[in-house]
């Protein structure tokens, strides 16, 4: 893997590193809020990845100006999909957070390890 290739594909590399960081956050952190943040990092990684697919070197944002269609535009389809993706991510985050609020009401903590302790004590009784 040459240096040139890394520079050229830096967006893809960044997206992949972000994806793994997000997954690591979700899997290892006991704090539920941090887990949700991890999901968001993963989603951001994919948005970055998707938008980078649509990028064309030298292209401009796909809004038709007075100059007509000779200008080179970036691919509009990934951008349109990511708009949808962002809204989906908002809904998921909102609902997960509301579950966390309810869990906090029920257990008094958002830490998964402590919740497990409380549950095992309850199960023994």
């Amino acid at each position: 893997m040459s240096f040139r290739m890394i520079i050229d594909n830096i967006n893809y590399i960044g997206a992949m590193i972000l994806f793994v960081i997000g997954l690591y956050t979700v899997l290892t952190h006991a704090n539920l809020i941090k887990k949700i943040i991890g999901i968001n990092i993963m989603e951001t990684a994919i948005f970055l990845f998707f938008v980078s697919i649509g990028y064309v070197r030298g292209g401009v944002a796909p809004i038709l100006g007075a100059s007509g269609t000779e200008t080179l535009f970036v691919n509009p389809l990934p951008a349109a999909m990511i708009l949808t993706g962002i809204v989906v991510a908002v809904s998921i985050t909102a609902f997960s957070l509301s579950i966390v609020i309810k869990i906090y009401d029920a257990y008094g903590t958002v830490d998964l390890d402590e919740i497990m302790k409380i549950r095992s004590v309850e199960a023994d009784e």
Partner: protein
Amino acid sequence: MNSLNFPVYILMLLLAFAVIIPLQRKPFGKKFQIAMVSVLGGALFMALLELIKVLTDAPYSYTFGSYEAGIGIEFLVDEFSALMTFVVLLLATLVIIYSIKDLEHEIEPHRMYSYYTLVFLALFAMIGMIFTNDIFNLYVFMEVLSLTSVAIIAIKKKKDTLMASMKYMMMGAIGSVTILMGFALIYMVTGHLNMTLIFQEISQVWELYPRNILLAMGFILTGFGIKAAIFPLHNWLPDAHSSAPTPSSALLSGLVVKAYVFSIAKMMYRVVGKDISVNIGITGYIIVFAVMSMIMGSVFALTQRDMKRRLAYSSVAQIGYIFLGLALATELGFSAALFHVISHAFMKSALFLSAGSIIYLTGKRDVKGLDGIGYEMPITMTVFSIGVLGMIGIPGTSGFMSKWFLGLAVLDAGHPELLLVILLSSFLNALYYLPIVISAFLRERPETPLEMQRDRIPMTMKVSMVLVAAGSLVIGLFPHLVMDIIEQAVPTFINLGMGL
């Protein structure tokens, strides 16, 4: 106004009704229930007309916005998706009739409207997923479905329900994100979102960028594997399905998981294509995971004492059967898998609904406490027994027919050793299901006299339960009602990815 628009009518009827429900100001009552059931009846009627139309004419594609496929979004209405829509709506109608009385015990009364909004949205999303021929559209519907399916669990608001739904939400979100990553990798090399066009493009592209397709299929199968609960990724399912309100359990186990399974089938055979799927070896992996699901799901089920948890683990095993059929990559295997999708939907709904009735009347969830319950609730236990016999695969039930087809397919594909796995799994099924039936009918309880009683549960619950069980029996006795339709749909699905 022509009949080509039926999928849109069904979807929009469900969506419009779902968005109108929150405006209700009156307390939940008879009038609303009648409206709800008649909307479902209307949708069911349209689905039936749709099915008849597709069977008499031919499968067709429906494009939104009058653009050609690829530019706009395309729906592909073939025999199996029409049948699946009909089954989804039929079962959902029965479950909803059941739920009206049962939910009074499980959720707060002022949440009833929210619950039915979510159920209608879930139906909308499932039918969309079944019809769509566009991968990004599939993703959008999938998100609606995963949100609603978590919400109809969490609405019960018990402590363990909240934890189960949190787990489901996290796993589901990882799954969705992973699937989207896979779609991005596919889009990267093909430049299409339409499944048929991807299929045409991918046979040329796959030589150039084999790594893309491999990674994409890895991501997609992991993601859908989480959502469909195949063995190592199943750990959310038992918690979620067992702690949910009974109607939600029936919907989730019977239908929602099937929508994801059908999506995997689409991805494997309609998007990537059979040849490439076999070539990069994913079918081999899926067979391994399917076998593990079939055995381990049953083994875990043996150790559960909670009745609904036992049913939930049994779902993991049954999903293994479906995956086994899909991964054989033959027409017979594929038909057997699709047949089992439908027969398992009926059997598992019957089991969950009858288990729910037992909990409704007696509050008992422990399988050890069911001695003599067959005399107290004969109708419920008959329904339960029909489900159990189907799960074990006694001739005459739909479960027997799906095992029969699967066995034939396994032999046909040249894997006779898998037949042993099917037999072993059936044996394990018998081991954990039969004791419930035996203790319910044959063992007596000292404090209550062994007299036949009428089930003391509401009429609506009894009727819907019996109808679900009857559906299961009808499929078992006349399997060709379903199998003929599947056999029409499968060749185009598996061989050409649908050349219309």
